[in-house]
């Protein structure tokens, strides 16, 4: 079955640093990966999508990479701020959109 894995441990970083979150997938080669942000008590909010033929995608302070050889996507937040603290979910599309468990990011001032 399609599996998608994210770091189960929370990532704690200092404000201003770059946060890097990892998403690994197995048993499938997705045509694209999506990243969502979820705040407590809220539904996930779409951030970025990257297709298999794209190595990198940027949006403001966000950057996503997609390495089909490693079967991995990295999600970077540069110049992180306390307001970036949230859970970040990656998802890939097979015959359905499958989500990882998410990684909690805590940015400390």
């Amino acid at each position, binding site marked *: 079955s399609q599996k998608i894995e994210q770091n189960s441990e929370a990532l704690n970083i200092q404000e201003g640093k770059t946060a890097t979150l990892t998403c690994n997938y197995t048993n499938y080669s997705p*045509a694209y990966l*999506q990243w969502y942000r979820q705040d407590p*008590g809220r*539904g*996930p909010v779409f951030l970025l999508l990257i297709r298999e033929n794209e190595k990198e995608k940027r949006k403001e302070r966000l950057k996503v990479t997609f390495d089909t050889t490693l079967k991995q996507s990295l999600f970077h937040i540069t110049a992180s701020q306390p307001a970036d603290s949230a859970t970040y979910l990656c998802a890939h599309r097979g*015959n359905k*959109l499958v989500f990882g*468990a*998410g990684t909690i990011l805590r940015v400390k001032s």
Partner: protein
Amino acid sequence: EAGVVQSPRYKIIEKKQPVAFWCNPISGHNTLYWYRQNLGQGPELLIRYENEEAVDDSQLPKDRFSAERLKGVDSTLKIQPAELGDSAVYLCASTGGGTNSGANVLTFGAGSRLTVL
């Protein structure tokens, strides 16, 4: 534009009681999803609708869960009877036109948190 609207936001019931959740997707979005999210986990698909047709309900526990999407707009998810293990957040999402529509970018509602005692 209003987002995906869900109600109720919170529901506490005794086990074996019925419960229903309602979802109003973004206007014009033909595809509607119901997901269940357990604490510390990612959303898991329960059912997907294309207009009023359920095209993927393989993950829906059909002995106690049911869903409908009359007229291809609003949708209702029902659990009867509820069990302790049904405690979770039930998320509704929709997709429609736009740049990323082919990649099924989802717009989620805030979710309905169910607690079964």
